[in-house]
């Protein structure tokens, strides 16, 4: 990363990730991203309303294929993300350390936990049905069963934890077959952009995860009121008034809403099932039994 004396480094342009491609913001805007210590790190794309809408279109387009992929396949794709992420561990450690101003050891712990979280969720793809589905002993001659199904397109406002927090809110959404539009942590978006490069090279179909950098207060209202978004996770919304406004807008088409936590969660803790279940519907099928 550092400029050596004998060679001028090639710096990376940080762009959006929409529909499997890396466009700039259609608005042409960028914003300065600084390290926790104030150093200039990069110019990130400042996503607009139009970018958000494009991302929703891409997510909707990807939903059919991703939600009907086999659970085994989705599990393998998520595991592949962990593999590729592991291969770029050093890069993420440096980016997380820069972004969050934490010591190298702490950054390493977070990156390791993020990799392990992909592995953990990868394993859920073909188990959540068995844990959360049921066969229902109805009082009549019917075979009756309930299965979890993905809700659809989810909007995710990622928390401040630039990689581990991000992975902890994205993986549970996509593992079950949802697709998503993610608004990266505004102050620390670079690990998210690098993660999108990992996703793009990990067999995750384009459009399954779409990642926007910019201001949550500007982009999130468009996602919250978008009629083709089925759910919204407000994990990274720290302004209570904005959270209320977003939840109210989400009611227009009765989105499933995950409210912001009362305080920043411990992202290293066991995540439990809540975030996966929040983006699942239960479908019950009745079939007669007879000859």
């Amino acid at each position, binding site marked *: 990363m550092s400029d050596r004396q004998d060679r001028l480094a090639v710096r990376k342009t940080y762009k959006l990730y929409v529909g499997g491609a890396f466009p700039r913001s259609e608005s042409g805007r960028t914003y300065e991203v600084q390290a926790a210590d104030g150093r200039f790190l990069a110019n990130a794309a400042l996503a607009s309303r139009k970018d958000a809408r494009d991302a929703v279109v891409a997510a909707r387009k990807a939903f059919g294929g991703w939600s009907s992929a086999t659970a085994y396949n989705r599990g393998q794709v998520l595991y592949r993300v962990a593999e590729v992420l592991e291969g770029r561990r050093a890069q993420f450690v440096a980016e997380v350390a820069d972004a969050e101003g934490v010591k190298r050891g702490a950054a390493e712990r977070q990156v390791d936990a993020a990799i392990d979280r992909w592995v953990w969720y990868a394993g859920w793809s073909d188990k959540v049905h068995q844990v959360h589905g049921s066969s*229902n002993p*109805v009082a009549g001659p019917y075979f009756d069963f309930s299965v979890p199904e993905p809700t659809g397109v989810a909007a995710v406002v990622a928390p401040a934890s630039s990689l581990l927090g991000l992975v902890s809110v994205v993986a549970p959404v996509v593992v079950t077959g949802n697709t998503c539009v993610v608004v990266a942590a505004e102050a620390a978006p670079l690990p998210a952009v690098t993660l999108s490069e990992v996703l793009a090279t990990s067999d995750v179909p384009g459009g399954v995860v779409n990642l926007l950098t910019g201001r949550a207060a500007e982009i999130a209202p468009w996602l919250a009121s978008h009629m083709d978004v089925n759910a919204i996770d407000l994990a990274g919304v720290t302004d209570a008034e904005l959270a209320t406004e977003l939840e*109210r807008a*989400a009611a227009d088409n009765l989105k499933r809403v995950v409210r912001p936590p009362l305080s920043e969660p411990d992202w290293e803790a066991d995540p439990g099932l809540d975030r996966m279940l929040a983006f699942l519907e*239960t*479908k019950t*099928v*009745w079939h007669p039994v007879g000859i």
Partner: protein
Amino acid sequence: MGTGMFDYAPAPESRAIVDIAPSYGLFIDGELVDPVDGTPFKTVNPATEEVLSEVVAAGPQDIDRAVAAARVAYDGTWSHLTGRDRGKYLYRLARLVQERSRELAVLESIDNGKPIRESRDVDVPLVAAHFFYYAGWADKLGYAGFGPDPRPLGVAGQIIPWNFPLLMLAWKIAPALAAGNTVVLKPAETTPLTALAFADICRQADLPPGVVNIVTGAGDTGRALVEHPGIDKVAFTGSTEVGRQIARSVAGSRKALTLELGGKAANIVFDDAPLDQAVEGIVNGIFFNQGHVCCAGSRLLVQESIADELLDRLKRRLGTLRLGDPLDKNTDIGAINSPEQLERIRELSAIGEQEGAERWSPACDLPDRGYWFPPTLFTGVTQAHRIAREEIFGPVLSVLTFRTPAEALEKANNTPYGLSAGVWTDKGSRILWMAQRLRAGVVWANTFNRFDPTSPFGGYKESGFGREGGRHGLEAYLDV
């Protein structure tokens, strides 16, 4: 109707079994009490327009009292009981419902207008079954898959509709109490009487005061309940529009929310379906309970090659339906629940004609008094027609056709709702193919409108969120 092959002598169920008081108070803290700031209103029999009783539209101070009673009961009694004892109370309630089942069925039919055959054979037995089912969960919550010691939410505010008054009460109260919550429940303004009868059942069961509170009233009462800062949970069954308002109203609070809202279900009939069964299923899908069913099969999608034959059979079958006195045991179609609802059904049906669909009803004499609407079907309906898009909540069926399974699927899913769907075909693999792809919370294959306490029920998309019934139904009342 009744002019077909057979004429039937009237066979009315006796009303003598019910004893309706001239007026009722609010059921708060274990007693029927006079309102503080509520105002009286009348509840009528929709089949005769006879005034049945006077009940209270609870005011904000009444809601305060009810919520306070529920809180005291939660903190002081209910949350300290063992699951086993909570379960035993629920078993008592189930048994009392069974013992008083005939009375409850008659009362439901009088206040709601639904045929006694349905209240007697469907609603009330399901009410008892629901309490019986959740009673058994009360001491097994640690095994329900929500962690070893799941906690209740606290005080639940519950608002239910008029189409299945006592059944919706059971769907709300049974899981809430099993999970350890206390409740304030508001029945619909036009159907308060069975909820007040249930209040009496709570007393007979010696349920601790304040665990169940019943506040009658209309929209204002509901709003006061939803907005009350003292409740931890809102559960609502009703229209999508009111559901939206409630979702907006709880935004920014920590109140948990589940919503069971409207629907516009597709009932899809393929060319290999057993047609006689399909006809019965279509009739049950849209004319059960006068079509006052959120999951009603209000859009019939029939494969083009059998459309004519199916419609012929369907029309013949509609000609044999008997509309009239809800208390008559031979009645198939009862009264529309209220003049407002009747007006909405009339209005949307008129729009259906204006937009170019063809309207048909069997020859059908409507009683002189009361609110009635004949079974009606529209053919030549397109997806753009309002009668194909909007919930009518009445005995009105919109018929569309399709050629391929993919087209059927596309049309079925082309709605903001996602509560239920039906598929009729002899081919098992096709049933499962369709069931996988229909974006609806309940899919009935070669049957329709089946309900069971063990079977999770609830919607996708704008039909709401959360499930009622089964293990899944506990989640709505646990802090998970």
